[in-house]
């Protein structure tokens, strides 16, 4: 490491109404260093990098780059100063081509032809195959990430910020990405690597800064620190892992027979011949990289998407032609990934959101007339049982934090005593204690004889709660296998290996 740090942050503070996102945060990054920024959701990692990237201005504190003041007013200025950023949610344009997307992220983009050649060169050099003429909407999540990375690399960044880059990758793709990052680091590019996955950080990063509730709670050398110690710093207390007693699964509740369906979205993924049985009391975990048919599978089970006869059977009865309401009446409940706008209506009160899915099973309506008093009581019950932090059921859904709303949404379905519950990303963006509570609730439900389908991109979560594991890849579901004893390698192969990256070599 050299004496003058590439980037020196000292005393950065940023407050939003009601919350201090960053409180006196300081850290230093040397050229070529791979620096991890570690913390739970809501710890303030995103706010910090947004300040470095010029998207947010700090309230106090200063930033220096090579000992010179650095205060980017906008992303453009940050890019000009040599900061590149790969977002967790890609800022890409589906209808435009790879080359057009990359041109939009550059200050002085060359002509498209010349740019396409540069893209090919960089993708060869770093082993990231990508065709410049393809429309981004048709790319897989891993390929989309490559677009972002190449966009940054074309500008010769001194510092590359990566926000949770591996959440959309298979284990094999992660290895390839790490090779690319190590090569970059060897060439002198510093990398600020944001993650909450400890093993990843231990294998990749030179140093780490740990954030909790907006404050720096420690620095460490990840290679010399155990994952357990880092976890304790990150969370602040030891967490209980969910427990469950092994139990013999009961009769078949859900039976999918070559379920195929077109996606309702233009850039969605069709489902292709999915066959699987789920039994009472069993948890089927479904992994896979985002965009491989997760949303579509949930829609096909919840009844938002109808399917041809004979494909979806519930206790032996064909339900493919039934909409969400009759399916709920039968006992098929679900909780989609997107909390605001899909699982809940943002501007409506929690009482109204309780009415949204519980009208039939909780007898909140009779002959079309709605019983708001009952709905209010049901909402209160959810709030109480699941420890949802809110002043009361008359508050709008959007006023809740992500974790609290997620507890409400999951709780709403769990309390309706489902026979089959389908959830997509049950703990996405939720802090660790809430996530543990949600997982425990799901396991308790299975204990009581409910069949569960848990779709998630968090492999650790799936390994923790699943009886059997299967992976979605390009709309196909792999053969389910008992979750106990599966290796990361095997899981990766089930998820589709490296998505056409086998040819890649560094």
């Amino acid at each position: 490491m050299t004496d003058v740090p590439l980037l020196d942050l000292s005393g950065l503070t940023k407050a939003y109404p009601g919350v201090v996102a960053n409180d006196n945060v300081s850290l230093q990054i040397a050229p070529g260093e791979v620096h991890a920024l570690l913390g739970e959701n809501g710890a303030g990692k995103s706010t910090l990098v947004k300040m470095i990237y010029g998207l947010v201005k700090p309230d106090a504190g200063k930033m220096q780059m090579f000992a010179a003041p650095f205060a980017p007013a906008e992303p453009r200025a940050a890019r000009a100063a040599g900061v590149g950023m790969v977002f967790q949610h890609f800022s890409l344009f589906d209808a435009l081509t790879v080359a057009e997307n990359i041109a939009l992220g550059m200050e002085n983009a060359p002509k498209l032809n010349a740019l396409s050649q540069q893209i090919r060169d960089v993708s060869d050099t770093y082993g990231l195959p990508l065709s410049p003429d393809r429309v981004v909407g048709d790319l897989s999540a891993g390929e989309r990430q490559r677009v972002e990375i190449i966009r940054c690399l074309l500008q010769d960044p001194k510092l590359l910020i990566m926000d949770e880059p591996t959440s959309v990758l298979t284990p094999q793709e992660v290895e390839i990405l790490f090779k690319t990052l190590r090569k970059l680091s060897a060439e002198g590019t510093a990398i600020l690597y944001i993650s909450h996955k400890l093993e990843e950080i231990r294998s990749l990063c030179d140093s780490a800064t740990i954030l909790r509730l907006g404050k720096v709670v420690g620095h460490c050398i990840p290679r010399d620190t155990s994952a357990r110690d880092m976890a304790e710093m990150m969370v602040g207390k030891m967490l209980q892992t969910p427990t469950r007693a092994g139990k013999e699964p009961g009769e078949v509740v859900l039976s999918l027979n070559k379920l195929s369906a077109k996606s309702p979205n233009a850039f969605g993924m069709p489902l292709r011949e999915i066959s699987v049985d789920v039994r009472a009391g069993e948890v089927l975990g479904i992994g896979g990289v985002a965009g491989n048919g997760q949303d579509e599978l949930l829609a096909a089970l919840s009844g938002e998407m109808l399917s041809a006869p004979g494909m979806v059977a519930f206790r032996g009865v064909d339900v493919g032609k039934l909409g969400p309401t009759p399916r709920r009446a039968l006992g098929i409940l679900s909780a989609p990934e997107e909390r605001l706008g899909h699982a809940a209506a943002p501007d409506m009160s929690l009482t109204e959101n309780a009415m949204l899915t519980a009208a039939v099973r909780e007898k909140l309506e009779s002959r079309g007339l709605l019983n708001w008093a009952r709905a209010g009581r049901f909402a209160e019950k959810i709030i109480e049982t699941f420890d949802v932090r809110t002043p009361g059921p008359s508050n709008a859904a959007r006023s809740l934090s992500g974790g609290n709303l997620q507890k409400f949404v999951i709780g709403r379905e769990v309390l309706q005593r489902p026979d089959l519950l389908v959830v997509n990303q049950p703990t996405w963006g939720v802090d660790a204690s809430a996530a543990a509570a949600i997982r425990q609730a799901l396991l308790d439900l299975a204990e009581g004889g409910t069949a569960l389908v848990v779709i998630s991109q968090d492999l650790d979560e799936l390994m923790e709660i699943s009886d059997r594991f299967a992976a979605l890849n390009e709309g196909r579901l792999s053969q389910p296998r008992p979750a106990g004893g599966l290796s990361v390698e095997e899981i990766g192969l089930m998820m589709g290996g490296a998505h056409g990256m086998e040819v890649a070599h560094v």
Partner: protein
Amino acid sequence: MDLSAINPILFVAGFLVAATPLIFAAIGELVVEKSGTLNLGVEGMMITGAICGFATAVETGSPLLGFAAAAVGGALLSLLFAFLTQITLANQVASGLALTLFGLGLSALLGQSYVGIKPPRLNDINFGPLSDIPVIGPILFTHDIILYLGIALVAATWAVLKFTRAGLILRAVGESHDAAHALGYKVVRIRTLAIMFGGACAGIGGAYISLIRVPQWTEGMTAGVGWIALALVVFASWKPWRLLLGAYLFGGITQLQLNLQGAGVAIPVEYLAMSPYVITIIVLVILSRDKSAAPACLGRTFHASS
């Protein structure tokens, strides 16, 4: 009925004229929609342009100044829409309707003292011997400059959208305002400029009706052309050249039904007069299955939250 009263050469020359207001209004709206904003106020901006242009032309005696004033008038009115939808984040459908209702009232108010007046004539461009070529000459080379400008505008819009960085940024903002914002593009500013461009174009289109096609001022004289222009953008799948084709199709139908009325066809006048609207509906039905070309953010409100 005497169909021979319809002179095919005059008919074709006539429908080029009939299509021009549509071309202006629709190409403006195409740019607005490409930026991700749906402005339903085209009718209101057209009629405002029609009276601004008419009044200015009458007062100054210069039709070209009239067109300039129409562009300014349309753009100013569209600024109201931009304020509502970009600054106060109002619903775009409601704001567009408000613009149309307001524009119709405003133009009626402004136009009170101009009813029954003849505006100064805008002379056709002198193409010399070209206009003497049989058939082609009278069809192509006997028009005013604004008509040619309309065609040039379509070509320019196509080229800018396809080949320039400005066009790429405009399309990007319409595809995903969040992504564009994350890259540091000024979504609100870009959309406001697009909306003003749309307003100016609609204004010129309106003035073309009041100064050249009719030419006089009556209340509500745009009679739904603005709405047909909106339909035309859908018809064209947001592609400039298809838009030109569509405008000529509608111009042809309008001109044909007028000629048929003149020729005394046995169909009642009212049914001929409703035909452009009915045909618009039919075309919408045929083409609305393909929505994939629509900008992904069309009609959605953008609020930068960091």
